[in-house]
């Protein structure tokens, strides 16, 4: 192509009208980087990336190893209760169950208590959309228009608060933790607030405004599977009751897979639990459907 340059107008020379501009863009001469792939560059980049990933992986593994975890499957251990519940018509019946376990070492630092479910398809499409975000914001809406059906209204027209399949199927086991030291039983203090996301608690969930909570939910009824109305979710703390109850908020944040864990409680670090859970014997006390 060398021979062509001879007939070209020289750069800077005045161009006739129809001559294309000599800009880098129009002449496709913008600076560009085209990597030349050869063995040396490819291999070195490959191994460098590998080394970086390895380092990240190792540090992740190390930090994960420092986390102590105790996992107890109480479906088997509380088989009586489980059997009772297999027949879904017994859903309302109370059932209690205790599980003992032993911590060999101290569990230092913050201690979190999770509940986990298996084969619970919170990610099913119709389950996921079965809620009314407007209602959960405390707005007075006609939930008949939402996807809440068939958990929207009762036959007599009373709306459910909160509506939808998610709310209806809320996890309602109560779990208490006891520490057994020298045959004295001490209840481990657990925090039930501050477990949810700030945005959920303060932005996405709001109670209807009224002079008190029960009047705010007047004219509505609890979902069919619930034992108590929504404004009694936390009878001790009004700021943790109604739609802004932490347990409720956490449940409403549905999981992406059918097997999942949700944060339930945090150990309050006071007295002998100031450093976490000391080694020793413990008991979980589980009350179904309260």
């Amino acid at each position, binding site marked *: 192509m060398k021979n062509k340059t001879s007939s070209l107008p020289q750069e800077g020379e005045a161009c006739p009208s129809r*001559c*294309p501009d000599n800009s880098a863009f129009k002449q496709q001469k913008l600076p560009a980087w085209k990597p030349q792939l050869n063995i040396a560059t490819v291999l070195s980049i490959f191994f460098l990336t590998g080394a970086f990933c390895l380092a990240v992986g190792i540090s992740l593994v190390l930090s994960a190893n420092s986390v102590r975890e105790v996992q107890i499957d109480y479906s088997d251990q509380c088989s009586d209760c489980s059997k009772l519940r297999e027949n*879904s018509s017994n859903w309302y019946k109370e059932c209690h169950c205790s599980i003992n376990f032993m911590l060999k070492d101290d569990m230092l630092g913050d201690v979190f208590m999770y509940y986990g479910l298996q084969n619970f398809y919170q990610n*099913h499409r119709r389950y996921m959309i079965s809620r009314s975000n407007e209602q959960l914001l405390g707005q007075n809406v006609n939930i008949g228009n939402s996807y809440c059906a*068939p958990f929207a209204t009762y036959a007599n027209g009373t709306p459910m608060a909160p509506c939808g399949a998610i709310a209806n199927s809320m996890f309602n086991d109560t779990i208490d933790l006891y520490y057994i030291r020298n045959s004295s039983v001490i209840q481990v203090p657990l925090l039930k607030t501050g477990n949810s996301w700030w945005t959920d608690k303060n932005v996405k969930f709001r109670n209807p405004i009224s002079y008190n909570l029960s009047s705010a939910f007047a004219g509505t009824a609890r979902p069919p599977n619930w034992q108590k109305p929504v404004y009694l979710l936390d009878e001790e703390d009004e700021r943790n009751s109604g739609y802004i109850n932490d347990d409720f908020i956490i449940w409403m944040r549905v999981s992406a*897979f*059918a097997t999942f864990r949700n944060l339930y409680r945090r150990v309050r670090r006071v007295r002998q639990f100031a450093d976490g859970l000391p080694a020793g014997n413990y008991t979980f006390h589980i009350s179904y459907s309260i």
Partner: protein
Amino acid sequence: MSLFGLKFGKKKLKEEERHLQANNRDFNLRFEYANNSIKTSKYNFFTFLPLNLFEQFQRIANAYFKFLNSNLFFLQLIPQVSSLSWFTTVVPLVLVLTVSGVKDAIDDFNRHKSDKHVNNRPVQVLINGMLKDEKWMNIQVGDIIKLENNNFVTADLLLLSSSEPHSLTYIETAELDGETNLKVKQALTVTAELGEDLQKLTEFNGEVKCEAPNNKLDKFMGTLTLRGEKYALDNEKMLLRGCTIRNTEWCFGLVIYAGPDTKLMQNSGKTTFKRTSIDRLMNVLVLVIFAFLALMCLILAIGNGIWEHERGYYFQVYLPWEEGINSASYSGFLMFWSYVIILNTVVPISLYVSVEIIRLGNSFYIEWDRKMYYPLNDTPAQARTTTLNEELGQIKYIFSDKTGTLTQNIMCFNKCSINGKSYGDVYDMSGQRIEINEKTEKVDFSYNPLADPKFAFYDHSLVEAVKLSDVPTHRFFRLLSLCHTVMPEEKKEGNLVYQAQSPDEGALVTAARNFGFVFRARTPETITVVEMGETKIYKLLAILDFNNVRKRMSVIVRSPDGDLTLYCKGADTILYELLDSSCDTLKEETTEHLNEFAGEGLRTLVVAYKNLEEDYFQDWIRRHHEASTALEGREDKLSELYEEIEKDLMLLGATAIEDKLQDGVPQTIETLAKANIKIWVLTGDKQETAMNIGYSCNLLNDDMEDVFIIEGSTSDDVLNELRNARKKMKPDSFLDSDEINIQFEKSSKKQRIMPDEQANGVYGLVITGHSLAYALEGNLELELVRAACLCKVVICCRVTPLQKAQVVELVKKYKKAVTLAIGDGANDVSMIKTAHIGVGISGQEGMQAVLSSDFSFAQFRYLQRLLLVHGRWSYIRMCKFLKYFFYKNFAFTLVHFWYGFFSGFSAQ
């Protein structure tokens, strides 16, 4: 334009003949001819929405996306199926429709504006003896209008009279065919008398009968009846809409066709769309993707059925089945459609739009490329079709014209043979031929004040012969100065410029001028020649014009002394058959010279003359007049008459014109050959000339094993020659075990694609037009393709424009390859339109080739950059884009697919 067709189809079935009378609106109105307002816009304010939507849904490319999309939309309305909120599918659909709708609206708005502008142009019309300013759109068929210098012609007009002598009118047809040289039109003598006398013009009541509106720019047939006498009308008397009046103060014209009936509007038809192989690949891919989508949805639907049966059944406490769903399999069926909606992103909806945008960008890069800009005539490259860029990188066959494409088409008179003596070569003292270079002494033409200073000739003996008043030499140059269609322009005394439509003629007339036979002026009836300083006026009695079949032209003139002579020049093959037997010996000598000239790559013409008898001529001219006023079969009758008079000619000699190669042609051809692109040259020149050009531009060279020449004159000869050539190139292709033979026996009738074969060396093939005609017939086609495709280079000489297209068609038919045709003249148009990609050289021979091409530039050598740089880049970019596009779609969609296995196949 189809709208007009429709409208007229309804009004009256078909106009067979047009009949009109000048200055008689009432008479003409009866026929309901269209008036001069034009409408190129498609919509108005109210019809835009429905018409545009209808049109958009008709576009094939968009059709099935929109079909799919609207289907999706309706699926969404079914609550059990709807898996996404409704606007997720509506938004892209509306977006695509809006974008193209807005583009159409802007286009149409511009058309409205230009229509309005054109329709409102003023023009002077003769109404009731007065000239009045009217708008263009109010002009009716049969009106007489006045045009002034530099005006656009308002409608298709019959020229009545003009300010120039002999009612000549000069026009520029740039808008019509892109040619910028002036053309001359001339009115009938009987109407020319009208002059600018408004009284006479108002009284003019000629009746015109002519053919119905059509789109043939170069043909017009009709008669004018005035005071009971009939006059023939042809294209020479027509001013077509779209032309511009030049060098003419004023002229009057009678409106024959107006508005949508004009030849310009009739010609603005739709061009056929060329699609690239990537487009076809894309269509296949999209179909495959559709199938893939259906498969995915099926798998997920089955999965859903099983899941609902195994798990969902027990999950009903928390999530009861929807109303109306009573079994897992029904749920699975509905889920199939839900997944169709959710996975539709795998189908590339915006693909076609994005592809078009990328191509547009690449086209801009081609137009912006300074390396394809030719500064000498200020021509940048042009991408006239924006959809073919990536195909440029896939070219396998190039079909090239020779004249004006490989060569510059700047002709110079180089040699001649007069009465058996050859002139043009320079010899030294010992009789050795000397190479002509810049130092060689030029012939001094100073004795001739009218000589063109740019003309160069080196053989002094010719000037001596002229000066010695050698009779054949004088006759030779007299012929050159008389027998042509060149227009002279003499703006200053002595400063002659010739306007020639063919550069060959210009070169010949210029040569005659320098040797002392100066063609000075032309009127329709006379030609003024200054012969050796003495002005002579010849009466021009008839012009027997040139066309591609006749390949010759003649004039019949009466000299000042009263002698009647026919002068003829034309191709040697044609003219030799018309010669008188008395000049056989001269014929042999001239043939020798002709071969010599052709061997040097020169273009040759043979010239001859004939003295005519007065009585015979008078009879002939009477019949000629009859024939030329006939409405039917005029051309046949005329050509019969021409043949009658053009015989028993006396040979005068031959001319040789040099056509120089363009810059960089050999290098370009070499590079393209290295890229494994096969180059076929299709030319109208004779074999020797063609082969010579072939050698000089590196197409043929001595490294080739052999150059086969196919020149058989019967079908069998051609077959044998082709077979022999193939036998030499690839002997085993005749064995029964040859794969291609087996393949062809199996699939006898179906569309066959020929695989590429490899010859045992580098070969060239030269085939003449005569043999080509046989070879292109049914059973020989295959032999031709096989033999020709084994060769690296194929040269077809003496081919007609139709044959050029046939050859391209042949390769397209048997080879799965992308073809490119490049040419510059009107004779290349058919080939350019046939090939996958047509390239026009915007050069000397006018612009028809450019107008029908997909890409155009000024020099052959830019082809290299177009193919090897832009073509390659476009292809690479397009492939990268497509790869990424499909990757993106699949990555996005397969996530949904796999998640289905974790979410109970619930279309989440």
